[in-house]
Structure formats: C-alpha cells, structure tokens
C-alpha cells in the first residue's frame, strides 16, 4: 500500500533539467500529431510555446480519439433524448430508466488497433476499459457484448487473431465475473489488415445515484486509485519522435496488459465507496490516462486542478512527468472526494489491496498545474484548451449506390437445399457457439434461458437482479449494406437492433454505437461516415430509439485499404415481465408459423449473393430499403402479440432471409418445420427484405386477425414438427445435416493448426 510515499528516481533530476520542460517547436507539434495550425493555436493559448510535457497534453486532448474533431459535426445529428433517457452522450456511459428505480448504463468501445498488435491483450484491455466506463457511473456491470470483424478466413493472420481475441475477451470477462452474453462475428477480406474488436458493457445503478465526472468544490482532494502507473501504451510515435531518447530501450512504450483480477477488486471497492457519501466526481483513466481524466473532470466543473505527479503510484523506476501523464496503464481511476473523506476511501481501497494516493487538489484558477518534486512542470489553461479543441468539416463525397440488380443475370437457384446448407455453414452464417462457449455467459445467475436455449438468439436476455424485469441486449451492423449505400446501411443497423429486441418482446429503449471507418481525410470515406450517421439518425428518430453513448474509431486502414464502413449498433431494451420473453427456438411441434411483414424478394447485397453466387461489391447491387414507418409498425405489433402471450417463438429475418431464419429456429430447439411457399425462388427464400419476422404460435387465427387490425401484412407460412425442414410437402433436409453444416465450420476452422 502506497499513500503519498515518494518514489526516488534513479537519477535524481531537478525539474529544469527534465527534457519534459524544454520549450517545443512546431516540428515537435507535428511529430506529436498536431497540424501546424493546431500547434499555432496551442502557442496562442499558452502565450508561449508549450513545453514538451504541455505539448503532449495538447496533442492527446486534440487527437481524433479524444476530441472527435472529424466526427463531432455529424454526431450532433443523433437524437439523444426520450422520456426514459437519464443521461445522453457526454458522460462515461449513457443511462436509461429501466423501471423499479433502476437505470441501465451502457456504452460500446473499440480496441481495434491494440487487438491487431496483440490480440489477447488488446481484446482483454478493451473489455476492461468498457467495464470501467460503466462502473465509474456507480453501475454494477451485468453484461458484456462483443462485436468482432476479422479478415478473410484464409488470410494467414486471421486464425491467430480469432483465437487470440476470443481468448482475450473471455480471459478478462470470465475473470471479473461479468457474463459475456452476446455479440457478432463476421469475416471479410476488407478487415485483413485491420480487424475490429468492439466491446459493449451494460451495468445497473440506482436511478438516483448515478455518478458523473463533473468536478466540484475548489480545495477538494484529487485521488488516484487502482493499479500503479507504468510505461504502458504511451503513444509510440510521440515517444520516438521527440528528443526523449536517452535510455531509449528502457523507456520504450509497452503494450498494455490487462489485469482482470485488479479490475474485479476495483469494481468492488468503487461500488463500496459509492455506497457512502464520499465521492464528488469520478472518472476512469482510459485513453490518454491521467491527462484526459483530470482534464475532463476539471473542465466539466469549470475548475482548475493541481497535481503532484511524483505522488502517483509508479510501477517502474525513472518515470518522468510526460510518461506519467500519457501512460495508458489499465485498471486506474481518478476521483474527487468530499473534504475529509480521504480516510473513509483509503480504508476501503486498502481492504481491497489497491493503491490509493491523494495526488492533488481542485483549484479555482482554471489552470492545470502539474508539479514534480515541488517544481511546476506544466501550467496550461483548461477552458480554452477544451473550448478551442479543433472541429473539422472534412470534405466528403456521397457514395453512389450501385444500380439495381438485373435478376435475369443471376444463375437460377438450382437445389434450395444446397444453397441453404452453404449459407448456414459459411464463415458468416455459421454458428458462433465456438466463441460464446469460451465466455462465461451465465455468471451472476441472471442470464435467461427460454425454450431451453440461452445464447444464440436475437437478443441476450438478462434478468434485472431481484426483479421480474429483464434487459434485452443486441449488437448489429451489416457492413456490406453500409458499403453499397451508407445511408440505408446506417438505418438498417439501427432497424436490425430494434427488431432483435422486439423479437424477444422487449421494448427498445436506446442505443450505443461504435462507428468504425477508414481515414476521414479521404472524401469517399468521409462520405461513408456522413451517410451512415445520417441513416442512423433518421432511424433513431423514427423508431424512438435515441443514442445515449458511443465511440468513433477512424483511420481503420492499412496501406490505403479501408475496412468496410462498420457502424455497430448496440441496442438495449427492457421486458417488464420476464415470464413473457420468447426466443427463436421452437418449443414444440404442432405450432403454426406466421410470416410478419412484406416480401418483395430483394436480392441485392444479400448473403445469398455473396456466399452462394460469389458476388460482392458493386456487382452485388444495392441493399434492401429500410422503411422506417413499417419497421416501427411491425415491431410494435410483434411486441404486442408477444405481450399478449400469443407467441411461442419469434425470430427476425436478416442475413440469408426467410429460409435461413426458419432453419435457425429449428436448429435452436431440434424441432423441425414444414413450410409452404408459393414461389420457390432465390428471391422468396433468401431475399433480405427488411421489417420481417417469423412467429411460431398456437394461436394463429388470433395473430392473423390482430395483424389485420393493425394493418400489418401477415400470412401463414407452415407448421413446426419433425426433425427436418420441408418445403411444400416435398423435399426436405434433415436437421442433422443442417446442424453439421451450421455447427461445423467455426470449430473445424479455429481449432485446426494450419
């Protein structure tokens, strides 16, 4: 336990000798990633050239990651309010009212680049970071989701990345004891040089006790808790390009390693302290560590802050102020305490064997003052640095969607069974059981099993502990749609999340997002960003499904090869009566199947085109249109019939269309079905028209008349039963064969050595 013990530096240096306090030049600014103009603004704000330490602060605070300078303008389009929204974007996580005096706090974040460099640790620390965002708010984390995108399975790096990332997510989540309940996993060559690892965390807090990062009360102590600070993750380019290269080897930044055990202790200690009345404000140290956490707390409160950096608990000897301020060591938090509460807090952190140090105080100077062994080493104004953080309206060009497909040019369907088997067994269509069985998806004893099935449905269902309610959680995005038509793709990601929640009976409340794109400095990429966010905003507006938190990850490209535009949507809904929840598994034979929604047979951009006909990109035509009013009407209808107890199982239609959805329902329970479809064509069987659901019901006539009354297209599709999937009383394919294909691909791919 360290409190305010001073570390002796190996070579004791007085502040004026430190390279950190040498004045910077424009070249230093550029080397640290600022533009010439941004550097000039920094000089103006300081009234002198900032020293190298101060420059480091400008450079991280004005980085794309912290300042959202390319995306801000477009994020403002998102609707962020609804009667149930407690906190929208701007805090560590968003918060919505989920009834019973409780709030759900949730957010998604990317760890793409670190996961490419070191898949296990990159993914693990991604989970750790997003959990901190949630428990910082006073919420106990109750669920994790993970949205993964990898390159071509045949690319030499892919297998190793899949194995490492999945192990990393499990390694962290399993150890902290928060269930990983759902996610996505797709493969596409566009991610060869840049996989995506997005993690979402959900926590539950008392609605009237949500903690924020807004500092208050000059004179209040600033307290550091958690793990010690090392040289982890200090921006490599920054380090290499400054004059800081004595002891170069020793000071080389290192990969961040996660310590889930310490995180678990930090969760328990923070929640224990939060139950007292000691905390004024709290903020985790995420990207840009101590710099952005202290800066944000002070700037939100309109205050100044003074930190004695020599009091920061350090893991390594010889660390300098610059390194301490920029370190991204994990499992650390910064808090402002009420005066006199230090002892209460310290006792709790000592009990959990965590470091605790009072490292500074809030001031009313409006300045961030950093000292090192008593000498001032940085002194920068907070407000101007925050207010004048750059914002760009980057040039963009609109993506022109491909011309409609000429259906006549497509080869005929042939045997539907072959196509179905292929779709269910393709890398993207195959079961992701191999992944989620490596995650403890049940710990905490609230992961619901419906119709005998846990994970693998449209949304994960997590009981709200001690209540009769449940959260429904999903993450969705169809990047190939976004690439072909960003606006439609953006809408579709939101609409699919809405459908996945509705299909369980849950009322969709709000979303978080993770916007993964290539370089915003390329107008065509910026055009994808603009289009996707416009589409998302429209959909959120129309569906009453506001954005309450999110994350932007740009520059996802390697050698000029950008990823597919991938705006991942994390949706949260609530079921007021968990006993009414349904999932995709047929619970019995003899039920009738009803198809809800309209089928035109849209084949453009479908999984069928990609996986069966091998057509992708501009060759694959435009994606299906999302009709938001219809989405809302159909979703509302589906929830209402589930609420009335008319539904035994429900699944939305997405990748692979009707036949894939029916097969997934049958495979989930092992009970087959027999379908009647007038036109056996690729368009009818595998088209991806939006806004559709399959419902299994023992009350078909009630469902149909309710649909008629609600003006929702609905028609009988077939019946459940048997151990095969049969079309028009004719040919059938056994579930055993379908299962072999669906469950076979991922394990055989991921567990093989070559």
């Amino acid at each position, binding site marked *: 336990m360290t409190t305010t013990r001073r570390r002796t530096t190996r070579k004791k240096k007085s502040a004026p000798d430190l390279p950190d306090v040498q004045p910077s030049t424009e070249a230093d600014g550029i080397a640290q990633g600022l533009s010439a103009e941004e550097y000039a603004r920094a000089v103006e704000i300081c009234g002198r050239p900032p020293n190298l330490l101060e420059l480091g602060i400008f450079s991280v605070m004005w980085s794309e990651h912290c300042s959202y300078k390319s995306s801000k303008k477009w994020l403002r389009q998102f609707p962020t309010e609804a009667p149930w929204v407690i906190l929208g974007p701007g805090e560590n996580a968003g918060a919505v009212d989920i009834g019973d005096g409780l709030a759900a706090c949730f957010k998604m974040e990317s760890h793409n680049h670190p996961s490419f*460099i*070191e898949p296990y*640790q990159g993914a693990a620390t991604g989970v750790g970071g997003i959990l901190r965002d949630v428990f910082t708010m006073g919420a106990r984390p109750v669920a994790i989701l993970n949205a993964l995108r990898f390159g071509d399975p045949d690319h030499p790096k892919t297998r190793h990345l899949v194995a490492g990332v999945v192990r990393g997510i499990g390694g962290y989540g399993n150890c902290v004891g928060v269930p990983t309940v759902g996610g996505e996993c797709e493969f596409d060559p566009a991610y060869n040089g840049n996989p995506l690892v997005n993690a979402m965390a959900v926590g539950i807090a008392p609605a009237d006790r949500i903690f924020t990062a807004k500092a208050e009360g000059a004179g209040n102590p600033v307290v550091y808790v958690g*793990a010690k600070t*090392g*040289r*982890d993750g200090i921006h490599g380019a920054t380090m290499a390009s400054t004059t800081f290269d004595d002891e170069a080897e*020793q000071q*080389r930044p*290192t*990969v*961040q*390693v996660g*310590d889930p*055990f*310490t995180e678990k202790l930090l969760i328990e200690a923070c929640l224990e302290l939060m139950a007292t009345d000691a905390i004024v404000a709290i903020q985790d140290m995420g990207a840009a560590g101590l710099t952005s956490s202290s800066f944000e707390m002070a700037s939100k409160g309109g205050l100044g802050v003074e930190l004695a950096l020599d009091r920061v608990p350090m*893991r*390594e000897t010889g660390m300098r102020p610059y390194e301490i301020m920029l370190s991204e*060591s*994990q499992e650390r938090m910064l808090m402002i305490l009420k005066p006199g509460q230090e002892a209460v807090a310290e006792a709790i952190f000592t009990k959990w*064997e965590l470091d605790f140090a009072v490292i500074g105080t809030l001031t009313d100077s409006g300045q961030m003052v950093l000292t090192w062994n008593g000498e001032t080493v940085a002194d920068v104004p907070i407000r101007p640095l925050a207010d004048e953080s750059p914002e760009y309206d980057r040039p963009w060009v609109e993506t022109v969607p491909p011309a409609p497909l000429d259906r006549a040019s497509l080869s005929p369907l042939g045997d539907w069974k072959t196509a179905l088997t292929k779709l269910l067994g393709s890398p993207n269509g195959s079961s992701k059981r191999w992944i989620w069985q490596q995650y403890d998806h049940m710990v905490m004893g609230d992961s619901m099993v419906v119709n005998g099935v846990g994970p693998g449905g449209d949304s994960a269902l997590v009981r709200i502990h001690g209540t009769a309610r449940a959260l429904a959680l999903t993450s969705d995005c169809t990047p190939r749609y976004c690439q072909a038509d960003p606006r439609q793709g953006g809408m579709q990601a939101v609409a699919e999340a809405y459908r996945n929640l509705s299909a369980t009976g849950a009322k969709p409340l709000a979303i978080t997002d993770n916007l993964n794109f290539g370089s915003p400095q390329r107008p065509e990429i910026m055009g994808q960003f603009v289009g996707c966010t416009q589409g998302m905003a429209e959909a959120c507006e129309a569906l009453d499904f506001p954005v309450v938190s999110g994350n932007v990850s740009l520059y996802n490209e390697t050698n000029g090869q950008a990823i597919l535009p991938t705006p991942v949507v994390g949706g949260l809904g609530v079921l007021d009566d968990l006993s009414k929840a349904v999932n995709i598994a047929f619970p019995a034979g003899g039920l009738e199947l009803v198809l809800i929604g309209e089928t035109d047979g849209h084949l453009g951009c479908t999984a069928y085109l990609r996986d069966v006909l091998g057509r992708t990109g501009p060759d694959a035509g435009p994606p299906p249109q999302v009709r938001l009013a219809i989405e809302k009407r159909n979703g509302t209808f589906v929830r209402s019939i589930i609420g009335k107890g008319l539904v035994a199982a429900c699944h939305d239609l997405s990748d692979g269309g009707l036949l894939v959805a029916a097969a997934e329902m049958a495979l989930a329970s092992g009970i087959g079905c027999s379908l009647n479809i007038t036109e056996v064509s690729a368009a009818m069987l595998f088209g991806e028209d939006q806004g559709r659901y399959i419902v299994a019901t023992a009350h078909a006539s009630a469902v149909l008349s309710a649909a008629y009354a609600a003006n929702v297209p609905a028609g009988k599709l077939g019946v459940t039963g048997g151990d095969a999937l049969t079309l028009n009383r004719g040919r059938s394919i056994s579930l055993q064969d379908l299962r072999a294909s669906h469950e076979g691909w991922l394990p055989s791919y991921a567990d093989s050595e070559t």
Partner: protein
Amino acid sequence: MIRAEVRVMLKNGVLDPQGQATRKALAHLGFSDVEAVRQGKLIVLDLNTDDRAAAEAEARAMASKLLANPVIEDFSVELLDA
C-alpha cells in the same frame, strides 16, 4: 537426443499481474524480503538430433515463431543433454 530449454519471460516494463499477485501472497506468508517476482514459462523440448548447433537454431526458430510472443515477451534458449 538433445534437450533444449526455452525460457520465456515478459519484457521489462510489461505488467506482470501474476508476478505481482505472487509477491503479495509470499509477503502474506511471511516471506518478507522478496523484492520482486516475475513469472515466465519454461518449455522443455526433446529434439531428435545429435547436432547441437542445429538443435539450438531450431529451438530458437520455434521460440520466435510460436513459443514466445515477440510483442510482449523475450526468450532465451539453453541446451541440456537429454
């Protein structure tokens, strides 16, 4: 047959949560003069060869290709007789 030992340790500066937890546990057990603990892997390979130079080269190749993760780990190789 030659026995090669590959020792894999986390690089200097890389956080070693296992080592830290072990150090604390040793302190609780009363082993108070343990300054630091680092935990690594030891991989013992029995190689079907009698050529020591070849064995060493092969063990190094295996270490850099598979046994160690160059992003966070260093390794060293030592030959014993099996």
